[in-house]
């Protein structure tokens, strides 16, 4: 589904991604872990099409197409979804109206008629249950005045509505209590299917108790320095990141 080849990206003069290689197949869940400042969120943002970053080298192939060539909205229409680490507050636009616009724009991209109001509401009700989100929250301005947990649940709700092929969760676990974490994870797990893939970006192993990954990658200084099965996450939890840092420094990379 996704093949990242020697991806390099910088912001301003500062290079952050220094050659990422990663292959994600349909049906897989990949966890990307790493200490703060290692480039995890940058990778998520670059994949979603944030223009603040400049891609300085490498390529990303998404279902046979050049992902880096697509504007953010086309990536979304092609099935990529980024759950934001810090969901943006948008005064004056309700979640409902926002999502309806988004869904219909994606449908338009695929040459489909817009969804009628009844269909949309039915779908919304169904997905609301999934993340235990309240109707009143959805009629309010998008994320405005939402608690941290509400914002994250709203991200997963949007994901459930848009049913992406490739979901990228950027530190979705940060700031969540255990109950919210469970709800978020359940939402993600419900969407797991042989046709879809998920990239979970996280600092802690905690979320991975609930969203069990097929692969774990450790990002450090803009490179994936280690990949392994889910057990790697437990090892990191136990020993922290220092041993990996030490290994990398010793190898003189």
């Amino acid at each position: 589904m996704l093949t990242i080849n020697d991806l390099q990206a910088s912001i301003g003069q500062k290079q952050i991604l220094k050659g990422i290689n990663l292959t994600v197949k349909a049906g897989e869940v990949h966890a990307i872990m790493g200490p703060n400042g290692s480039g995890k969120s940058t990778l998520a943002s670059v994949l979603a099409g944030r223009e603040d970053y400049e891609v300085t080298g490498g390529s990303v192939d998404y279902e046979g197409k050049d992902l880096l060539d697509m504007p953010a909205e086309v990536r979304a229409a092609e099935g990529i979804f980024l759950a934001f680490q810090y969901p943006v507050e948008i005064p004056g636009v309700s979640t409902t109206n926002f999502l309806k616009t988004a869904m219909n724009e994606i449908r338009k991209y695929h040459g489909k008629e817009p969804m009628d109001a009844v269909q949309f509401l039915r779908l919304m009700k169904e997905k609301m249950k999934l993340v235990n989100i309240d109707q009143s929250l959805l009629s309010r301005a998008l994320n405005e005045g939402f608690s941290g947990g509400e914002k994250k649940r709203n991200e997963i709700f949007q994901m459930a509505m848009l049913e992406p092929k490739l979901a990228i969760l950027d530190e979705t676990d940060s700031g969540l209590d255990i109950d919210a974490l469970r709800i978020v994870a359940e939402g993600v797990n419900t969407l797991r299917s042989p046709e879809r893939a998920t990239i979970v970006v996280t600092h802690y192993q905690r979320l991975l108790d609930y969203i069990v990954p097929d692969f774990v990658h450790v990002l450090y200084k803009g490179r994936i320095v280690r990949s392994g099965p889910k057990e790697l996450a437990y090892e990191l939890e136990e020993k922290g990141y220092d041993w990996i840092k030490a290994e990398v420094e010793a190898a003189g990379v």
Partner: protein
Amino acid sequence: MTNQPQNNPVPTFRDRLLAGFRVSEERMNGETKSPLHQIRRAALKTFETLGFPTVKQEEWKYSNVTSLINKAYEIDQPSTISAEDLNSLQIPNLSGNILYFLNGHYRADLSRIVSPASEVQIMSFREAITEQSEAVGAYFSRLADFEDSAFTALNTAFASDGVFIRVPDGQTVVEPIIMRFITDARTNSVAAQPRNLIIVGRNAEVKVVEAYRTLGDEASFTNAVTEVVVAREARVEYYKVQNDTDQSYHIGRTQVRQADNSLFYSTTVTLNGGFVRNDLNIVLDGEHCEAHMYGLYLPNGKQHIDNHTLVDHAKPNSYSNELYKGILEDRATGVFNGKIYVRPDAQKTNAYQSCKNVVRSPDATMNTKPQLEIYADDVKCSHGTTTGQLNDEALFYMRSRGIPKEQAQTLLMYAFAEDVMNKIKIAPIRDYLEGIVAEKLAM
């Protein structure tokens, strides 16, 4: 006037106005001796002394009227607009009292008054001069002081028509009163100077709308003055809607005086206009008054929109709240000047002011100036102005969900404007304006 001999100097607008005043006096019989006409004469004198303002005057620093006063407007041009022409201007589903003014003059034949006379007296200002001489004598020109305003002086000198509304004590006017000021600039340049007087009695309630619309491509000049007297416990909703042309000049002043426990709730929406200057002045001449001022302006092209507001807290324990918002495109210019006076007497005043702008083009300019003059020590006042671009983070967030950039921008601008649009409580008017706003923002 159009066939001026070539060797005669073309009279200036000022000359034409002064000549027009003499002509109108000749047409009057006994009225020249009336107290009202003495006010007109005094106002003309003031206008002659003051002359049109220049950018050297602080109040007009960013609004240059030079091109306004160099046009050859017909001062008393009758309009040939028919009832059929007006059909296309109808606001869908709008019920209520709908009054038409063509080039400043009331047209009873086109208007519809549905509220019973026991609830409210609605008539043209011209009629009121004789029919309601006592009320006109008591309030006309008592609120809108012309001593330091050339345009108010000019309007006062020519005050002859417009609307007169009087709500007796204790009455609630159920249906809104919508005044539609249509300027017909289809065949030549015209000037209109409506003069409105609205008197709202004790514990009475009314909703009024001043809606300005210019038709045609010729230049037009509207110089409107509205005086609103708000008695104790009265509640007034006041809306001003401007949808003029790029060739139109609009100078408008609304002067309000509130007594104890009254509420004045105003929203000004300026959709289009080549040159617009609005002055909204509210004197809180009572305790426990509430004044709300909301505004939205959306200039594009070379449009210039200037909103000056003034809240004068003259007595203790009153509250004022103000929010003006603007979206500026292309080479448009905007001005916001918000004055708040808190007089030494006006302890426990709460006064809030905010002006927020989105400037969408490097060639557009917004000038904001909050002016707080506080002479009491136990007050809560705040003000803030922001001028910036659309939030990039929000744009990316929306795009990452599949909404193309341009739609995302339009949605964000619309949401920005909604804050003010939501203040319009007359649903058919809000719906109608939302349609125009959406269309303009999607351009």
